[in-house]
């Protein structure tokens, strides 16, 4: 490896040439990335712009990007004439109950699987992991029959109850995270006479808080954006989650060519998650990157 010690004797003009070339490459790369970014963001901007157009402007050729008079009352109309508000409420109920209770269940299980003595520990963990292999479409029909026998169709319960029993992906990552915590810490707390519950709540939870927070946000987004399970169960418009509400509006208002209204509803469906993402961007991105490298 020590064959070339040339760089020290390398002449200045040569180095400058390389620097200039690298600056040129940087510029080209920047232009390409910027063009790509336009391609990525344009459809979303167009969605927002359409939501503010008048019904005539929607069909204008050449297209209008900035509506002459932004029709903000489309949003008012959407608020009063559609079930968007119900949708938001239902989506919040489902997403929050699933993630709050489910995160707690997962953290508790991850603690037991990572730090406690228990019979068949590995078998339990592997068994839970095997659940990933069975895709939801295979389970959805039996689950639907189960819940319809309980009279839960057209309620939010089938979306909440199975999920609060925990999510193996989250258990997996929290367990992984806990493996970097020394066992001696837990042992010391035990000798001090702390109960397992106290160890979990006072010691483990604070340690895994960053991992929990990141997984919590990712899970929240996934539940918020879920579509297949909600359309199986929810029939009454007032009881539907936001994603189903906007999908139904898409069908209902497309025949009336009321695209501004449809796009306004889509904007509203997208906005909460976008805000959460922009606020917690760093944590989300780190956690996602971690998922990929650890998986």
């Amino acid at each position, binding site marked *: 490896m020590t064959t070339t010690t040339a760089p020290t004797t390398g002449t200045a003009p040569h180095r400058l040439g390389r620097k200039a070339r690298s600056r040129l490459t940087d510029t080209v790369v920047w232009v390409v990335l910027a063009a790509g970014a336009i391609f990525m963001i344009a459809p979303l901007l167009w969605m927002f712009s359409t939501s503010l157009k008048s019904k005539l402007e929607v069909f204008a050729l050449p297209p209008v990007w900035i509506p002459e008079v932004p029709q903000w009352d489309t949003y008012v109309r959407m608020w009063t004439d559609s079930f968007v508000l119900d949708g938001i409420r239902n989506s919040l109920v489902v997403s929050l109950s699933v993630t709050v209770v489910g995160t707690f269940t997962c953290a508790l299980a991850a603690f037991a699987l990572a730090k406690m003595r228990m*019979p068949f520990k590995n078998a339990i963990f592997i068994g839970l992991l095997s659940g990933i292999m069975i895709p939801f479409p295979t389970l959805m029909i039996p689950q639907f029959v189960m819940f319809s026998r309980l009279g839960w169709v057209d309620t939010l319960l089938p979306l909440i109850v199975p999920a609060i029993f925990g999510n193996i992906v989250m258990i997996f990552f929290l367990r992984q995270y806990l493996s970097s915590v020394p066992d001696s810490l837990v042992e010391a707390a035990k000798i001090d006479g702390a109960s397992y519950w106290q160890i979990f709540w006072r010691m483990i939870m604070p340690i895994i808080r960053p991992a929990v927070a990141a997984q919590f946000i990712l899970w929240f987004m996934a539940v918020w954006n879920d579509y297949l399970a909600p359309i*199986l169960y929810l029939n009454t418009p007032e009881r539907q989650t936001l994603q189903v509400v906007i999908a139904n509006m898409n069908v209902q208002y497309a025949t009336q060519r009321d695209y501004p209204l449809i796009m306004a509803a889509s904007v509203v469906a997208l906005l909460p998650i*976008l805000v959460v993402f922009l606020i917690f961007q760093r944590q989300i991105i780190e956690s996602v990157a971690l998922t990929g490298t650890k998986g």
Partner: protein
Amino acid sequence: MTSTTSPATTGRRSPAPHGAPPTAAPASSKPGGGSSRLHRNEKKWALLFVAAPVLGYLLFVLYPTVFAAYASLTRWNGLGPMQFVGLDNYVALAGDERFRQALFNTFFYMIGIPVGLAISLALAIAMNRKIIGLTAFRTIYYIPVISSIAAVAILWQWAYNGDFGLVNQFLAFFGIDGPNWLADPTWAKPAIILMAVWKGLGYSMLLYLAAIQSVPRSLYEATALDGAGAWRQFRAITLPMVRPVTFFLVVTQVIAGAMIFTEINIMTPTGGPEYSTASAVFYIWKQAFQYRQMGYATAAAIVLGILVLIITLIQFRLNKRNSFAID
């Protein structure tokens, strides 16, 4: 803190009350009652702590799986009695044109996976340079990933509108007269692939970027001194170093791709022109919840599940063999 006993669980055996103070155990070990007694109770507590996921697994995964296996052997509308018909459903599926078409479409969509991975790897390499506005770029590329698939599907359905859609207006800019994408049997599938690539780019890019950044710089510097060009560096260092990420992405995206449903259901509610966009899950969903052929639909779902499992196992096999070749 006994959050698992929320109203939601009434009517079914709720998992043991996690939050209860330690006196809940029959041995009634009090906190501070000596570490040995606590030690003896450790197993009990551990089992209690994993009780919820285990119970959830039994109720919502294992039981439905067994049930599905049986239901697939019956003629059944979901309400009435199940009539055992043996393998009839599977035999019928083998000759079912629509199911075969739906499976074909589902796998056709996966063309988007290598395309998306190639683009996102290129993007990640580009983003590994120190250039202005990197964070902004990363955010923008990631926004479609976090966007709700329903909203995105609605948006793209509108964007693919033959007369007024964004896509054709963009193409008209170059003098191209675009098709009415989603109503055209030839173009409907590519249209959905394009949308899926657009939506997924940011995610793969992010994972690739993390992998590339973990490659020690000295590796590149050493090969540069040896006279390796950018392309050789890419082949010799970058590509092998991001292999685990590529593997992870391919496996997860194939599984997710096999489950594609939302965008199909929203963009082409009838399964597209000549059934050209219907996916396997779309077909299963229609059979089960529209035509009430629950037994038949379950058989289709099991076929899909087994196909995915086989493909995943093959991928793991290939991955193992290839990494040997590299070593």
